[in-house]
């Protein structure tokens, strides 16, 4: 119980000291040794999965507790917004849960602060169970070690609106396969519709630069490099699209939701998505669903982009063996497979993608999309560098916008973005 005296002490005594050492303090806790007995109470935090998958996670926890008597797992789920703020406060305050659902960009700062357990040390025997690409997506340039188990992967096709393609005089059965095709089709679409129908709804992000074949960082991971000729070329092409209204005029302020809605209301002709979206189209826009075309992600590198979710173990956990065992349990082949069957995501465990569920067609579009995605995932890449922070994303986005608006030349914009990101990288230390 807090006593007034304690409150006063907090106010008076620590007035100057506290802010400087409030974080990164060494309040005891865990070892990296995961070989002890699996027991104790641990907390597992997921990111916006409760609303739809409550029973799955309750089953998961029950299964683990049954397998390891003496363990107790408390599952908590956080809503979509503010996740980084929540983790920051917990990390700074020393209240981070034992096992945490993270994305690679969240892992990097936690690992640097010594809050993430190095799994190359603590969980090396499990490594062969996962796809190589997935395992290495939680490595951090400039550090040794891997800091999270790979969990589910996602990638998806490019949806397009066949009716809009036809109306623009494009062959609805021959969607663009290369960037050159895409840009040409988009310009024609804009011209034929008098700028009413755009083909793309989003400005290029760092992932788009990667897919276009731009080297994003130098080899050592100490500086960004996307201001090379290829990067400038991509941005210049996007500027042409923007001027011709082939890139939606509201793209500069678009969010994934708003661009999704534009595609849904047939104001935009193409949108990246996943198998999940098909059901949404069917329900919300039957007209669109009848005319939906599905094609592969466009890439110049031969590798499509994928998103990786991970499960991290807090290095300060009091029950390292149980936390590691649970993080592994959540991400093992069997549990990932049953999760994948509930929702359109893909397991990151080796061999799982060869399961008939991901290889055998049944004539439906959903299955076709799933099979295509599973095939492409085997060589997919998470283009977004793990060191690319929120602040860097904003810096890049804003410089790209300036170039599209014509306020800056593409080269100058990318130079500025690289300079800003390098500085932020240095400040991250």
């Amino acid at each position, binding site marked *: *119980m*807090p006593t007034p005296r*304690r*409150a006063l002490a*907090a106010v008076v005594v620590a007035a100057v000291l*506290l*802010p400087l050492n*409030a974080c990164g303090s060494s309040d005891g806790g865990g070892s990296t040794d995961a070989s002890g007995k699996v027991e104790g109470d641990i*907390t597992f*935090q997921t990111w*916006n999965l*409760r*609303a*739809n998958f409550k029973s799955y996670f309750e089953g998961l926890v029950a299964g683990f507790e049954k397998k390891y008597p003496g363990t107790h797992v408390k599952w*908590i*789920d*956080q*809503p*979509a*917004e*503010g996740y980084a*703020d*929540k983790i*920051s*406060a*917990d990390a*700074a*305050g*020393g*209240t981070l*849960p034992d096992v945490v659902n993270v994305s690679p960009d969240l892992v990097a700062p936690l690992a640097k602060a010594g809050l993430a357990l190095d799994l190359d040390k603590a969980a090396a025997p499990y490594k062969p169970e996962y796809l190589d690409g997935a395992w290495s997506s939680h490595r951090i340039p400039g550090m040794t070690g891997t800091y999270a188990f790979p969990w589910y992967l996602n990638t998806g096709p490019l949806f397009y609106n066949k009716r809009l393609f036809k109306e623009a005089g494009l062959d609805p059965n021959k969607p663009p396969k290369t960037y050159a095709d895409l840009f040409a089709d988009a310009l024609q679409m804009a011209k034929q519709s008098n700028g009413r129908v755009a083909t793309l709804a989003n400005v290029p992000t760092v992932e788009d630069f990667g897919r276009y074949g731009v080297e994003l960082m130098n080899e050592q991971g100490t500086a960004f490099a996307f201001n090379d000729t290829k990067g400038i070329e991509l941005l210049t092409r996007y500027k042409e699209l923007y001027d011709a209204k082939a890139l939606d005029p509201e793209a500069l302020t678009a969010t*994934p*939701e708003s661009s*999704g*809605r534009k595609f*849904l*209301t047939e104001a935009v002709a193409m949108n990246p998505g996943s198998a999940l979206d098909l059901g*949404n189209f069917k*329900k*919300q826009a039957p007209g669109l669903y009848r005319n939906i075309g599905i094609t592969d992600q466009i890439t110049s590198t031969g590798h499509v982009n994928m998103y990786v979710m991970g499960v991290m173990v807090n290095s300060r956990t009091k029950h390292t063996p149980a936390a590691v065992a649970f993080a592994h349990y959540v991400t093992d082949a069997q549990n990932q497979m049953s999760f994948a069957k509930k929702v359109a995501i893909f397991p990151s465990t080796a061999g799982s993608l060869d399961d008939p569920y991901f290889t055998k067609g049944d004539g439906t579009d959903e299955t076709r999309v799933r099979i295509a995605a599973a095939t492409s995932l085997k060589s997919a890449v998470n283009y977004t560098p793990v060191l690319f922070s929120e602040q860097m994303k904003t810096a890049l986005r804003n410089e790209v916008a300036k170039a599209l608006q014509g306020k800056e030349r593409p080269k100058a914009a990318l130079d500025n973005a690289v300079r800003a990101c390098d500085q932020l990288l240095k400040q991250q230390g």
Partner: protein
Amino acid sequence: MSVLEKVRPALPPAAAAREPRITDEHGRRVRGWELVLRYTLLIAVLALTVGPFVWQLSTSLKGPTEDIFGSPPRFLPAHPTLHNYARVADTIPVWDYALNSLKVAGANVVTNCVGSALAGYALARLRYRGRAAATLAFVLAMLVPVEGIIIAQFTTMRELGLNNTLIGVVLPGSIGAMNVLLLRNAFRSLPHEMEEAAFVDGANVWQRFLRIALPSVKGTLAVVAVFAFMGAWDDFLWPLIVLSDPSKFTLTIGLNYLHGTFANDERLVAAGTIIAVAPLIALFACLQRYFFRGVGEGAVKG
């Protein structure tokens, strides 16, 4: 003064008998054309202030087959349905979250009314050294940009062992500086004579506060209550950071689950916002009589 006395009896009594008299607060008749003008303006402003809410309500009542993007817009749903509300309730435990919000908001009302009244009374009535400094502390607190201090607040809360509790959610805003200043002004505007009489009768500070001062600022307390309820009910970031356990989540956090999960379903998001806003409007409707009186007491006067 004398002009006034002459004007008033000049009102034609015959007119009053002919038509139902519509009068202002001084019992003076309002002319017909002026009345029409006033109501026209009132309805125009009404459309502007309430229109967006009605639009949101209408969106939330529209079924999955109804076009919500059409032009011209349709305010009345063709087939009104509560289906979207049922889906919200299926997706998240709305009632549990609403109960938590109610606890937090209720506690916030009590602490703010009590704490601010005590502090406001001290600032307004009691003469003591350090009063200026205390007032300044509250004024400064009102100006602090909250966005910059949230992690420091969390660290403090953790040291008190109150993170992940509803008490931790309430505590930082439990006695708002703005509310203290509101009540200070209300107490200051009370005539001194009342309390002096009680003082002569031998009433101590506590008795004077409870029996004389407090009942006179009921209206301002209603204002504080509404503000406190609103503030606690609406807050998102702070409860999110303090709470970890979903069973303790408040409604604003809970409703955020709808975002990630049904990003493209305007109907569902609309239903969620209506759930969030309806209790506030209901509360305000109940308290509005006191509320407007409180404002009349000069609570918000400089």
